[in-house]
């Protein structure tokens, strides 16, 4: 398969994730959609790594995975803290920081 096909899949997944971040009100689902976007970037990185025959893209993909895991941990910690405060888990209602 040509590398272009993999990049097309990556583009589609990235756009689906972006739309999900915009339309879903639940922060948990927004985190999931962020995962989608990061994974799309990962797919593109690995495809480019295959294209050049170098290992750097795969290293980068692994680092992205680490960053995604960190983001998930902190994000889910925030969601649990919000739940403990008995506030609504909805990004439209958590707007007190808005000026």
């Amino acid at each position: 398969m040509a590398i272009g096909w993999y990049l097309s899949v990556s583009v589609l997944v990235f756009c689906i994730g972006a739309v999900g971040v915009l339309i879903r009100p639940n922060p948990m689902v927004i985190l999931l959609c962020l995962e989608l976007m990061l994974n799309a970037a990962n797919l593109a990185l690995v495809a480019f790594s295959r294209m050049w025959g170098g290992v750097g893209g795969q290293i980068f993909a692994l680092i992205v995975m680490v960053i995604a895991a960190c983001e998930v941990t902190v994000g889910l910690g925030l969601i649990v803290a919000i739940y403990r405060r008995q506030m609504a888990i909805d990004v439209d209602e958590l707007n007190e920081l808005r000026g």
Partner: protein
Amino acid sequence: MGSGDVLSAIIFFIAAIGAISGAIGVVMVRNPFYAVLSLVCHLISLAALFLLLRAQFVAAAQVVVYAGAVMVLYVFVVAYVGDLDEPLHRPGGALKVLAPVFGVCLAVELFFAVLGTALKGIGTSGAHFSLGFGTPAQIGTAFLTTYLFAFEVASLILMVAAVGAIVLARRRRGLGELEFEKEIRLRLRPAYTGTMAESIGVPARTPQPPSQIEIREGEPVPVTGGTGGASDIEPEPRTRNQQAWEDD
């Protein structure tokens, strides 16, 4: 086109369809629990694509770390918070219309950028590679020589994230919480049944029917309920969480 190419094309299309439909499922499914399961499907399809790209170690890490560990974390938090069926869109937002338009525009633009590029390798199935390409040995060597700094920084970031998550999600009261629960347990015991407190002359506490005292997370503590009458702990209609908030 040899038979191996046909086989890899078939596997590619199956995996690509799995990845895209999993992604659509994450966005479209109402229940967050099913969204997480859909993401697991997406991640496993993506691991198959990684394997087709000769990235064995990345594919294994994807399945073990992502589809295994991170998704378990998600499932735990969804189960803790409660799977709330929720409306898909925000009620009456302009985003409902604008977001898909934005997504389509972004897709078109990225397709132009990716497929209209002058990169020669896009149309080929990749460069020639040595036998050990993408194996753990090669990844490990690269991590510990060329990319050592990134490796160390990643470990530091993981450490900070773990500590940060614990700080964010812990219970605020620490040991005070235990005191509180001990108090409740003491109140559940019927009067004059031989507590140590009674033996040294402390007046027994007023009995209350145990069915009235059921402490659950997130509900007001029913201190004043039942036939008990006056008690020596003052009635607190606040919830435990608010209490924790104020004690901070």
